[in-house]
């Protein structure tokens, strides 16, 4: 009897520490934030002292052109970053999917940028982008070309390049892994049927890789909304609001403008946005998985 009870309790005992910690340090804070977003709250008050203002913070933000701009910057940043990284990453994977000497060394070198602290990445690029002493402008100068105002006129483009540098390897590695785990039989079959390299890629490789690619894309997209330190160090959101992504604006609103309530409301908007993305991507993933299973089955039947 007690043994049965113990058995039934076992999973809960395994779960308990994780559940307690996540409840205390993730879920409760999220609730607390939602509660705080209805208040006019500054950092020197406790939440109880802050005045309840209803939906005011949300309405203010909804009508705030700066918030719109920041949201636009965030979406543009995420879109371009994920787009280019997918394109370059998958392209390189298809290109480098060969049996060559030293591939593992190569992969090691490629993942280096991802492992380094965003703060450090930011400072490296800030140095390289520096208008006069930076590497890029010196290089352009040596070639006799006009200098580019990287972090001034082209700030958004510049931070996108830095992010592509850091995260393309992520997509490259995952796509390469996906490519190398494709059923050899399917590829052989295609080759025997006389498919050109392009046809193999478009009709066999890409469709079979699709489930992994979509998950990868989803992961990068979510991560693109988390980027903050690199931009903070490189531009602090400037010039103007041209690189002030939402995460940065939340942190500025909380610390510089001292409006915790508004920052909380903004955090909630960001969460809703991410939630929508996540749900949409999940839906697509499950659909794709079914389709891929069908293709796989069909290919295997062909043999």
């Amino acid at each position, binding site marked *: 009897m007690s043994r049965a009870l113990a058995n039934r309790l076992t999973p809960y005992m395994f779960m308990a*520490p994780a559940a307690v910690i996540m409840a205390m*340090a993730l879920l409760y804070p999220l609730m607390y934030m939602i509660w705080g977003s209805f208040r006019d709250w500054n950092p020197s008050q406790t939440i109880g002292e802050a005045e309840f203002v209803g939906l005011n913070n949300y309405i203010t933000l909804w009508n705030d052109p700066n918030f719109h701009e920041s949201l636009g910057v965030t979406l543009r940043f995420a879109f371009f970053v994920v787009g280019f990284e997918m394109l370059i990453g998958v392209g390189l994977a298809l290109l480098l999917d060969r049996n060559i000497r030293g591939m593992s060394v190569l992969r090691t070198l490629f993942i280096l940028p991802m492992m*380094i602290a965003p703060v450090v990445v930011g400072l490296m690029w800030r140095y390289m982008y520096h208008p006069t002493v930076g590497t890029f402008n010196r290089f352009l100068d040596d070639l006799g070309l006009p200098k580019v105002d990287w972090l001034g006129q082209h700030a958004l483009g510049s931070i996108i390049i830095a992010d592509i540098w850091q995260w393309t390897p992520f997509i490259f590695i995952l796509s390469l892994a996906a490519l190398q785990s494709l059923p050899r039989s399917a590829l052989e079959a295609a080759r025997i049927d006389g498919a050109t390299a392009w046809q193999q890629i478009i009709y066999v490789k890409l469709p079979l890789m699709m489930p992994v690619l979509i998950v990868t894309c989803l992961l990068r997209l979510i991560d693109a909304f*988390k980027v903050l330190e690199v931009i903070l160090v490189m531009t602090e959101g400037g010039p103007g609001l041209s690189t002030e992504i939402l*995460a940065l604006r939340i942190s500025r609103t909380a610390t510089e403008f001292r409006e915790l309530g508004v*920052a909380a409301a903004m955090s909630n908007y*960001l969460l809703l946005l991410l939630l929508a993305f996540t749900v949409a991507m999940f839906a697509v993933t499950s659909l794709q998985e079914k389709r891929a299973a069908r293709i796989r089955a069909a290919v295997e039947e062909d043999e």
Partner: protein
Amino acid sequence: MSAKYEKQNPAFYVLIAILVFMSIGPVMLMFINSFKLDVDIISGTSGLLFLPTIQNYEKALCDVLWYEPEHVDFCSLKFGGAFINSLIIALISTFLTLVIGCMAAYALVRFRFMGRDTASLTTLMVRMVPPAVLLVPVFGLWNNEFCLDKEGLIGGLIRDTFGGRGDVCLAGTHSGIILIYVAMNLPFVIWILQSFIVQVPRSLEEAARVDGAGPFQVFFKVVLPLIKPGLAAAAIFTFRIAWNEYLLASALSDRNTKTVPILIVNNMSEFNVEWGVIMATGMLLAIPPIIFTLFASRQIITGMTAGAVKG
């Protein structure tokens, strides 16, 4: 592995050389610049023609050096202290995340129980929460709510032993930062480890159970050793986040618990951009991740793939 390598077209090797240069070039640049004086960095005597100096490192590490470098006026950076804080926070939070995370992952994979689906879904959902979103609530809670009254039993005891003033709050302590890092990393670790635990053959566990082992013994003696590669991957990822994170640490730490990323951002003070010293501190911060990458790239790649493949 087969020793048969395909011969490739030279253009292919050129492409690879360019890629390698692009991915490690900036790091090398930082490495080289960290050995230059500011004047050399700014004046653009570019390339390798300069007199290397360890002044920047001496300046960064002035609080832990056994001698007093002559060019250092006063020691303002206190990099050594921050490095120790970073180590404490990153190591402890990695350890805790792993232990707690793999227990939870095991439960989610191996047991059917009420609330399993909810737990699994919650884990997936909270993965998407950006640290910036946690900034406001964590700042408020850690400073005002998660506190012990200094007149109370435990609070009083802490104040008597460790000194300090005011109520005992999580903010400004190592534990406070560790707690949020563990919570932030758990969903990811649970996610990754699930895919490794699934691969452990049930028959092994059954066998152990028949031999009279309890569920915890089965877990620690049978399952854990088998998922070592997964643990290594998860450990590296957790460590990487805890070691590199800036935003939450900067909101929660005080002068005694500052971590290295905070110190670096602070040191980019607007009055005096000392590129040399900044690059040196950046290099020091990057060393542990670089070491991991060089020695455990296989685990990192396994972990990344496992994390992505399991939707």
